[in-house]
């Protein structure tokens, strides 16, 4: 049973950085200009796989206005990577995808830099292109990394040849479970990769002063970027300062360490500040963050009363040419393929296959939307096979409070069942619909990431306050929630606080705008920091009002004696007193909650994704209208119910769900990255990579199931930035499958793929009749 407890005084507030961004007064990295600044350009491989037989930068260096031309020979010989150290800053003799950086140029302007790039001579011996993740796993497949075995790597990873990370989850006896099942359903699904596509192509400016470098960069993870610069250029952390001006969106695409070290190295060699501005095409091709394509083979056995008794599933994920942050995706993908269901007997096996594609990496809820799409399409097939209503099937088989998940984690209070009930009700599930409309339903889940994080809070002599935090804002508005938390702790108003953030040299560590973790972890840190000041204020007030510090209450900008509101002193007055004595400074971090216990399962290649702290659940129900003559689907209405714990700012939370849903619609229908036979991306631009527009947005009804979650973040909050992107494509798929008469087995479910499936259904029907 779940207990619904509304958040204390949920405040709908407009984020502090909103007016700057809307009016154009906000400054982004590309807006910066430094005296003497040069323009950077990269020389890309242009081919997917080849050995460099000649690399000559002589002509490029001779062009007037060129200040520096760098290759791997000019930087420390360091292999890096968060899970597998399989990468170098520049190509180290072999190029492994089309946008591998071979050389970098700094010149007086972009045109000169481009001329120099064009003047760099590179010759290749072509190597066989590994263009398909499944065949990459064959014993005789050409290797993307011939030296894979010698690379350093996280001890948790299980690696073999082109399989950069194998992971399996096993529980019970899947053979016996299948044998005992009344019906066994097998399905194959293929999801194309897709892109984060933030509106701001990335920009980086680097400037050295003596032996210290300052780098302004559009990153979601400033400390990660700093760590990458320190590792590859062999610098201590205190000589590298990362500053992020306003960030123009990320969606995961700006997680990880990217090109900061290239630009710092150029600036050092040129002895001038250097700026990199990506084109839209570069933003598509070069970052090691593209949502991984995955293919799935599902097999699920159910009893005659509709209970799932066994599941076997195999996933092959496209790692691309380098492992980036995808090392844990095989286990995360396996968890999503098993799903938030009670399954006594199961085996999931996932492979992360090297190919000669752009490296995969975190894009909003990595592995989740495409795996939810495949799993939930399969779930509808299973329900249909035993003649059960898909919603009733989920209500029967989904996990719930006190029950056990796929790895044997016993859940505390969770709201998945309430999400199903709410989403179905908001969508009008079961209503009579026209022949060309249907409602599809899907459930999804996502972990909360409990990690270290830090913040300072100070109140100056005039009573105004600052939060100095390592947290990074990527557009979620999450950082903007922090003043509310500090204000509540100190009995002040959120407007009393200004934020200082996105500068690694002034604030303590935070993991960054990644893993939906800002509020969960940095909120904890800010509250801890504010609590230290609250203690100082109580002591000051007690002294001032001649009372016991334990009796002092902080509220409405004042400190007063409990039960005697007349005995009060403004906090600003106390701040003035403190300014002449012990200053009001707090620092906080707080211990992140540890992982919940699991038992009864065996996890190979355990990258830490088997046990989920404060898991989030969702159910989306989507009404779709289908033009059967063309295969074009239109989304008429979305109902989204979310258990993301307590909601601190409903306005921001609703924005996250709306954005996640719209991104999910794009992934469902129009966003996909295909490769040609030479492993070149076919849609590396916004003309052919079709994001959804405001004109396409359907009405979206949202409900937050707010329950008492154990081990959650501040006030019971979980994350919310990624969860809304998980279940939308799946729900759309289940509506389309009803209208078509069969599931569309490739993502995105483009109009042509829907139409092709309609033709297959028609042929099968005619064939069956004949």
């Amino acid at each position, binding site marked *: 049973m779940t207990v619904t407890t509304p958040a204390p005084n949920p405040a709908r507030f407009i984020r502090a950085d909103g007016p700057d961004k809307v009016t154009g007064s906000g400054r982004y990295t590309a807006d910066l200009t430094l005296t003497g600044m040069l323009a950077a350009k990269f020389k890309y491989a242009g081919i997917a796989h080849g050995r460099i037989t000649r690399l000559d930068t002589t002509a490029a260096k001779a062009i007037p206005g060129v200040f520096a031309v760098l290759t791997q020979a000019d930087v420390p010989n360091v292999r890096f990577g968060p899970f597998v150290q399989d990468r170098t800053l520049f190509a180290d003799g072999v190029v492994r995808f089309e946008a591998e950086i071979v050389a970098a140029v700094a010149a007086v302007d972009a045109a000169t830099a481009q001329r120099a790039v064009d003047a760099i001579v590179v010759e290749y011996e072509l190597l066989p292109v590994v263009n398909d993740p499944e065949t990459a796993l064959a014993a005789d497949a050409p290797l993307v990394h011939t030296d894979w075995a010698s690379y350093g790597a996280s001890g948790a990873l299980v690696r073999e040849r082109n399989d950069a990370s194998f992971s399996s989850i096993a529980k019970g006896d899947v053979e016996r479970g299948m044998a005992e099942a009344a019906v066994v359903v097998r399905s194959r699904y293929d999801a194309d990769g897709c892109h984060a596509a933030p509106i701001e192509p990335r920009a980086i400016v680097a400037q050295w002063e003596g032996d210290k470098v300052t780098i302004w960069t559009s990153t979601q993870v400033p400390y990660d970027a700093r760590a990458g610069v320190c590792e590859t250029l062999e610098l201590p952390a205190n000589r590298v300062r990362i500053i992020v001006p306003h960030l123009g969106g990320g969606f995961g695409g700006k997680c990880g360490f990217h090109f900061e070290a290239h630009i710092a190295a150029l600036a050092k060699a040129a002895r001038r500040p250097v700026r990199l501005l990506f084109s839209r095409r570069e933003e598509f091709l070069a970052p090691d963050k593209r949502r991984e394509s995955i293919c799935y083979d599902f097999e699920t056995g159910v009893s005659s009363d509709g209970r799932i008794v066994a599941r076997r599933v195999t996933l092959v994920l496209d790692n691309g040419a380098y492992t980036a942050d995808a090392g844990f995706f095989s286990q995360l993908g396996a968890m999503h393929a098993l799903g938030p269901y009670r399954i006594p007997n199961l085996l999931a096996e996932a492979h992360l296959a090297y190919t000669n594609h752009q490296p995969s990496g975190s894009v909003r809820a990595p592995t989740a939307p495409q795996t939810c799409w495949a799993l939930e399409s399969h779930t509808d097939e299973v329900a249909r096979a035993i003649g059960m209503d898909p919603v009733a099937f989920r209500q029967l088989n989904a996990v719930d409070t006190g029950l056990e998940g796929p790895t044997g984690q016993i859940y505390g209070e969770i709201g998945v069942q309430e999400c199903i009930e709410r989403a179905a009700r908001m969508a009008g599930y079961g209503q009579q619909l026209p022949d060309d409309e249907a409602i599809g339903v899907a459930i999804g889940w996502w972990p909360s990431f409990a990690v270290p994080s830090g913040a300072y809070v100070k109140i100056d002599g005039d009573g105004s306050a600052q939060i100095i935090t390592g947290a990074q804002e990527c557009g979620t508005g999450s950082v903007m929630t922090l003043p509310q938390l500090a204000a509540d702790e100190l009995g002040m108003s959120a407007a009393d606080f200004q934020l200082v953030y996105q500068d690694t040299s002034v604030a303590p560590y935070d993991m960054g705008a990644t893993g939906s973790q800002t509020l969960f972890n940095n909120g904890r840190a800010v509250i801890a920091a504010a609590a230290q000041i609250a203690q100082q204020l109580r002591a000051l007030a007690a002294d001032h009002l001649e009372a016991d510090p334990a009796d002092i209450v902080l509220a409405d900008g004042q400190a007063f004696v409990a039960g005697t509101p007349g005995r009060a002193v403004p906090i600003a007055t106390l701040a003035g007193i403190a300014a002449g004595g012990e200053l009001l400074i707090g620092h906080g971090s707080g211990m992140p909650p540890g992982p919940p216990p699991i038992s009864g399962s065996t996890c190979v290649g355990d990258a830490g994704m088997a046990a989920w702290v404060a898991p989030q659940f969702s159910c989306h129900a989507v009404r779709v209208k289908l033009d059967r003559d*063309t295969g074009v689907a239109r989304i008429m209405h979305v109902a989204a119910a979310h258990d993301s714990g307590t909601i601190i700012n409903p306005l921001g939370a609703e924005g996250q769900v709306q954005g996640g849903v719209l991104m999910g619609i794009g992934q469902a229908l129009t966003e996909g990255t295909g490769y040609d036979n030479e492993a070149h991306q076919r849609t590396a631009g916004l003309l052919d990579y*079709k994001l959804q527009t405001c004109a*396409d947005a359907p009405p979206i009804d949202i409900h937050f199931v707010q329950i008492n979650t154990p081990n959650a973040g501040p006030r019971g909050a979980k994350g919310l930035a990624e969860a809304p992107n998980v279940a939308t494509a799946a729900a759309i798929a289940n509506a389309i499958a009803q209208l078509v008469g069969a599931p569309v087995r490739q993502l995105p479910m483009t109009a042509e793929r829907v139409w092709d499936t309609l033709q297959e259904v028609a042929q099968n029907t005619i064939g069956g009749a004949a």
Partner: protein
Amino acid sequence: MSFTIARTVEDALAAIAAGARPIAGGTDLVVGARHGKAALPADLVAIDRIAGLDDITAGSAGLTLGANASHHAIEHHPVVAGSYSALADGSALVGSPATRHVGTIGGNVMNASPAMDTGAGLVVLGAEVELRSLHGTRRVPISELWSGPGRTIAQPEELCVAVHLPQPAANSGSAYLRLEYRRAMEIAVVGAAANVTLAADGTVAAVQVALSAVGPTIVSVMGLDTLVGSSVADAAEAAAAAASAQATPISDVRASDRYRRHTVGVMARRAVETAARRAAGETIAIPVNRTLGIGAAS
């Protein structure tokens, strides 16, 4: 390198004769240059401030669109919407509100994209393009203007100054619609326009159909004369079959040739049906794609 602001057509023609390229809204020229399609010409003459060149004039002889008439103005002009609906349907689908405010009919026509949204409508409505140079003026039937993707028969010193449309026949109606994957910033996957005249008995007295994005230029569907006297339903089916048969689509990342060949037939059928409904006096709001949800059911 030069940038000339022309105040009169004659100013513009002189600059063009000297080698400058005209620029009005710049939605193709500038975007194309940014995407590396073709570098910006060294010499440009801006024609957007020429007085009167954006006039839309309706009279007994028909309709004249100044070359600078914007898609927004065309979409919202009552005579265009009422009597030349296929053109308004097309203008209303171009790009985004920003594109429609600066993009012009002259630029759209002379850019000669086979996927242009106004082209098929102009063909079925019998448009002529007025080309002017320092040496004189000529009128070219629009279906003869385009010689290939991005190419026209206009001479380098000629400027498109107007598009002329004849008075539509009594009891006629027209429509343009396209297959689209999203509702803004989209390019036709395929498109079709139809102009239908009905006889007193409700049968088809005349029908023209033209197609976008299924060949190197806008395709006029041939052989529809035989449909005179048939029912609208039969004419629509026959037009669909003819459209699919006469289309010569390519396969690219947006669609396969097979899918385009099929869907251009669907668009042609719906264009004939919609044009006939308008011919019969029904008001179907501009653009058809939104009102009827064609291509992406609304």
